């Protein structure tokens, strides 16, 4: 699995000396202290650290959900490289919608829409698929995550694990090359969590690049590569050194 990183190709996403400082009424707090990171196509990257280490902050820098204080984030998804940190909110939304699927611990499905409609929503907003096409595609995705028989139910009527599958299907709606997941198994029991993890492994096998945040050290061996983060700094691990070569 380690060989899935390609030292010869350009990184898909590259963080250069990224610093994030929060300003709050309590004062300044630097959550990321100069992060350098390359993520290559086809990787299943685990970002592992304790609560408060800065994992979510790091993900927000990659997805452009939050603005960095210093440094650069360059993504080579699509035809041209994109400087994520220079995009405005609207361009970011469109770029993110087409190139990244995002999965949160708390599923974040819209409660009034059916599962099918939830999956169709990104296609509707980004306009990459014809409406009829998008319905067919959403059904396919629900089939892939094994929820198709519930397609017309509302999120409240299925279990947490099933909701997370729908969230993953939604993340894949616009067929983005990258999937970003922030503690996707955090609120699930261990059996269900395992199913989700297996789903990720299958997606990686199909060629997706997945970045997943977790605080469970036990999951470490199952990633193609992992990095450890503590107090806003990366702890250099043997695997990381290996791929960096």
């Amino acid at each position: 699995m380690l060989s899935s990183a390609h030292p010869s190709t350009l990184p898909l996403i590259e963080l250069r000396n990224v610093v994030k400082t929060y300003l709050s009424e309590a004062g300044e707090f630097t959550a990321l202290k100069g992060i350098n990171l390359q993520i290559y196509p086809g990787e299943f990257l685990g970002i592992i650290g304790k609560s408060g280490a800065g994992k979510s902050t790091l993900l927000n820098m990659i997805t452009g959900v939050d603005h960095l204080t210093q440094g650069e984030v360059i993504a080579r998804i699509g035809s041209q490289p994109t400087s994520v940190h220079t995009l405005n909110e609207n361009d970011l939304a469109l770029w993110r919608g087409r190139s990244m699927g995002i999965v949160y611990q708390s599923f974040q499905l819209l409660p009034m829409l059916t599962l099918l409609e939830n999956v169709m929503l990104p296609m509707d907003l980004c306009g990459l698929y014809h409406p009829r096409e998008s319905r067919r595609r959403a059904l396919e995705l629900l089939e892939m995550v094994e929820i198709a028989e519930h397609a017309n139910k509302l999120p409240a009527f299925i279990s947490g694990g099933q909701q997370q599958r729908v969230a993953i299907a939604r993340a894949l709606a616009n067929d983005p090359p990258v999937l970003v997941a922030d503690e996707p198994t955090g609120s699930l029991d261990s059996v269900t969590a395992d199913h989700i993890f297996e789903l990720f492994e299958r997606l990686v096998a199909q060629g997706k690049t997945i970045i997943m945040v977790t605080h469970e050290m036990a999951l470490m061996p199952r990633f193609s590569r992992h990095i450890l983060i503590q107090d806003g700094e990366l702890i250099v691990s043997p695997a990381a050194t290996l791929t960096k070569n």
Partner: protein
Amino acid sequence: MRPRWRKVLLDLFENPTRTLLVVFSIAVGVFSIGVIAGAYVIIENDMSASYAANRPANIELRMDDFDRDFLPVIENAPQIAEVEPRRVFNIRARAANSQAWTTLDIVAIEDFDENQLNLLTPLQGQPKPARREVVIEREVLKDIDIRVGEDLVFQLPDGSEKTLKVVGIVQDPTTGADDFLAPPFAYITMDTLPTLRQPDLFNRIYATVEGNGNDPEYIRRVTADLKDRVEKNGVAVRRTRSALTNQHPLASTVNAILGILLALGVLIVFLSSSLIANTLAALLNQHLRHIGVMKLVGGRDRQVFAMYLVMILSFGLLALALAVPFGGIGAYALAEFIASQLSFNLLGYRIVPLAFIIQIAVGILVPLIAGFGPVINGSRISVLNAISGELANETGGASSPGAKRETLFERFENAVNTALLRRGIHLPRPLLISLRNTFRRKRRLALTLFTLTMGGAIFVGVFNVRTTLFAYMDNVGRYFVADVTLDFSRPYRLSEIEQVARQVPGVEYVEGWAFASAEILYPDGTVAENLVVLAPPANSRLVDAQPVAGRWVQAGDTKAIAITEGILRSFPNLKPGDYLDVKVRGQQDRWLVVGLFKFIDREGLIAYGTYEYFSRETNLANRSVSFRVVTDRHDEAYQRAMSEKLDKHFREAGYQISQARPGLSALNNATESLDILVIFLLIMALLTAIVGAMGLTGTMGMNVLERTREIGIMRAIGAVDSEIMRMVIVEGMVIGLISWVLGLFLSIPITYGLSLIVSLAVFETPIDVVFTPLGYLIWLGLVILLSVLASVLPARNAARLTIREVLAYE
């Protein structure tokens, strides 16, 4: 349907109470604007059209009797086009099967086929009576229950009775259009006059002018010239009246009243828009997480913006669907009501395009404008803020990390608390929580208070205006102290009438008055105003006068008058002590103005002089044609009974009595029309109060919804249902009471403004404002009731939540 539009659709039904609240608040505004704008257009058009269609005379002269030979004097007068002579006289009538007498004005017309002016609109039966037949105006039906084909019994001056058959019912929209106190009309031909013991003579002229019939200045000049000409030819003119061809005499009054209603309608729209803004801001706040998710999966600002814009438009369309039909019906109902009050016809039910357009514009634009701010704020929010919860610029919500500064209110509250504690007073904790909750959402509170305060202030203001109007009428009533007014067809000696009147038990006091009519002249000799001088004895007990400047007339005054303030229209600088040039019975004279008083100047001005002087001037010393009687009781029913008794008594004693009127009836008629106006104002005030209450309901609902988690925690630590409900209701009442206190102040300028507009419209003069505690007390009760009602539903919802539901809420 695409998912995002499905979301918009489902959001509309997600919280039906909220949707209804927004839809109703838009609908109330649209409805009131629709009703008023529609009625305005219909009346503006139909009132004058219906009036003009009946070819109103420009000039009316009330004269002494004249015969056909005199007509050429008028017909050949310069600038006079058509002329029609009539005989109009007072008579008492009843239905054949009833004993209740009613006074009618009989109009005798020479030839109904040649009738050119003040046309009659046929309603039922024959519009043209033959000899010994009568046609009645529809107003008669209000006083006498009679049908076409039945007989009307008339009482002649000598007490005998004559019967005429009613052959038709007509409407006469022009004759007496500006005098809603006049008795109803009935029409006969000249050859029926002998039957009613009336001479075959005319006493009235109706005429139109040549050229522009809509130039008031020109018509007045022609009228004055015609009057001069008639008097020079030996016939006295008692009274003149002029009117425009294309404008109902009361059009400006009605328009002014509709204008006030329109202003209130606009205010309601304004208030409802602040309600809409409030609700939408809360809705967007509740939808932040949804917006965050949509942005996360690729939604851009304008897509989110468009979604919520469509939502607002849907609110507007729903409101329009509700309000436009009712608005159209209401407009016609209001117009019809006003038309029936003023006796003109509407041209039929119709949709007023202008009102329709205005309603659509209000229904679409008002929510768009009100919702624009919240929606822009909501759709511009960043994903991070949206997912983590709060609109960046809304203060006082869930606190961001870090110690917050103490707000001004918290400091105030702490100070009050410590002060109370030092005196050993403990405010109960739930009350404290209610108080603190009230002030958590400052902007929302401000908007709610604004709406409720406005509603209350207008409500209170209307009550004050009502009291102001009635106080003014009371003031006018001081000049109507007599219980019965007796008018005779010829003069009688004072002592004689007094003696005969006293034979009727209940009569306490009798006074004979003199009258004079005059024209007030400008220095250049042209006529400025028509004046009627009432001349009671100098020591009269029947005028409780309160001059606003100078003094009242007194014994020893000769060519001296106290005159109504209406004179200031023509002579703005007139002061007591000044002289007025007048023309009395063709003679120029100068009268001293000793004082000014307030009165309703509807037709010409009124002045008071002394009987002692004016009776000699009119060659009626110690005699009079008009007497005022005071009886031992003063209610209207008794006055009416005494009028009948006196009338009968004098007739039986062989006196030529023409009329016996209860004193209060004229005043009550006038007060009645004021009541109608007040009812309209109250309806508008209630609408504003309802908008205010809806605002409060919305606010309480939003407050409770946002505090669901908190309420759950309170229940988890042992608060019971009733405590939670009480907390919410007390919060609602605190808001209600604050708005009441603010309303105390705001009602002052509103009262002054409304009174000024109304009094200018109705009395054509500003009147003194009177405040009444009544409105404040009623509003206090109402606002407490409304705020309890407004918070009961949210409070029940809050109490119903289970701990599990509440803690799961996000």
